[in-house]
C-alpha cells in the first residue's frame, strides 16, 4: 500500500496549483470584462446560475464521500475483491468501484495490491473503470446537471462496455502470457 503517501502528496500539490490557476482565471476574467463591459451581464448570469446549482448539492456529495471513505476502508475493498472469482468478480468490481472515494489515481495502488493478490484482471479493470466513470457522487452531479435520461443511459452503456473491456483485456493479457511461454518452451 505504498502508493497512499504518493496520493497525499499529489493532493497537497494539487490544491496549491488549483489556487494559482484560480487566481489567474480571475485576473483574466476581470481584464476581459473591463475591456468588454457589455459582456458582464451574460457572464455573471451564467456563472451565478451554475454556482447556485453546484453549491446546493456539493456539501451533500462531499458528506457522502466522507461517509464512504470512513465506513468502507480501502483494505476492505481489496480484501473482498481479491477472493471473488468468475463473472461475479467483474460485477463486484464495478459495484466496489462505484462506491464514492477519491480520484482515479487513488485507485491505482489498490489495483496493484489486487493484482499481487491474484485477483482476476477483468475484475481489476472493471473496478478501475467504475471508479473512474460511474462513481455514486459523480452520478448525482450528472443527474443534477444533465438530467435523469442522460445519466441513466450513460450509466447502462458504460456498465455494458466496462464488462466487455474487462473481459477482453484479460483475454489479451492471458494470450500474450501464453505466447511468451510457448516461445520460451520452443527455445528450450
Amino acid at each position, binding site marked *: 500500500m505504498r502508493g497512499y503517501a504518493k496520493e497525499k502528496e499529489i493532493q497537497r500539490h494539487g490544491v496549491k496549483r488549483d489556487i494559482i490557476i484560480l487566481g489567474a482565471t480571475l485576473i483574466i476574467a476581470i481584464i476581459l470584462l473591463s475591456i468588454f463591459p457589455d459582456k458582464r451581464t451574460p457572464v455573471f448570469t451564467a456563472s451565478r446560475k451554475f454556482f447556485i446549482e453546484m453549491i446546493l448539492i456539493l456539501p451533500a456529495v462531499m458528506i457522502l464521500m466522507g461517509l464512504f471513505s470512513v465506513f468502507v476502508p480501502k483494505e476492505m475493498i481489496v480484501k473482498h475483491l481479491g477472493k471473488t472469482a468468475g463473472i461475479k468478480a467483474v460485477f463486484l468490481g464495478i459495484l466496489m468501484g462505484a462506491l464514492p472515494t477519491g480520484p482515479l489515481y487513488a485507485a491505482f495502488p489498490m489495483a496493484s495490491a489486487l493484482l499481487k493478490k491474484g485477483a482476476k484482471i477483468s475484475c481489476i479493470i472493471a473496478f478501475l473503470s467504475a471508479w473512474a466513470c460511474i462513481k455514486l457522487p459523480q452520478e448525482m452531479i450528472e443527474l443534477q446537471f444533465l438530467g435523469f435520461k442522460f445519466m441513466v443511459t*450513460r450509466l447502462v452503456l458504460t456498465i455494458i462496455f466496462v464488462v466487455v473491456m474487462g473481459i477482453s483485456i484479460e483475454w489479451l493479457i492471458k494470450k500474450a502470457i501464453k505466447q511468451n511461454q510457448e516461445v520460451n518452451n520452443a527455445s528450450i
Partner: protein
Amino acid sequence: MNTTVIFINVFAFGCLISAFIKSRAKARQALIVALKSFFHILPTVLIIIILIGLLLGFVPQSQISKIVGERAGFGGVLIVALLGALLHIPSLVSFPLAASLLKNGASITSVAVFITTLTMIGMVTLPLEIKELGMKMALLRNGISFLIAIIIGILMGAIL
C-alpha cells in the same frame, strides 16, 4: 429547488444520521473528511464556474455548435475525445461544464464522449498507472477506454 437537489440532500442527510447512530466517532471523522475535501475541490469548482461564465458570455452559440455540435461530425467528436483524455479536470466539475456546452449547441455525442474520456483516461496520471499496473495493462486500459468512450457517445447520440 428541483427534485434532484432535494433527493440528493435528503439521501445524504439520511446516510449521515444512520452513520451517527452506528458510530458517533466514525461519523464525526467522516464529516471532517467531507469538510476537507470540500475545501480541496472548491478552487476547482470556482475556476470551472468562472470559465463557464466566460465561455457562455464570449463564445457565441453558433461557434460552440460548429466545433462540438451536430454539424461538427466525427472530427469534432475526435477532438473532444482527445481533449477529455489530455485534460485533468476532476470529474465532479466536468458535469457543469458539459451541461453548459450541451445547453449551448454541443451535441449529446460529444458531451458524452468528453465526460467518458475525461473520467476514464488520464494522461497526467498515466506514469503512475504504468508504475502500479505495468505498461501493458495501463496502455490497454487507456487505449480501449478511448475507443469505448467514442462508441458510448455515438450510441448516446443515437438513443437520446
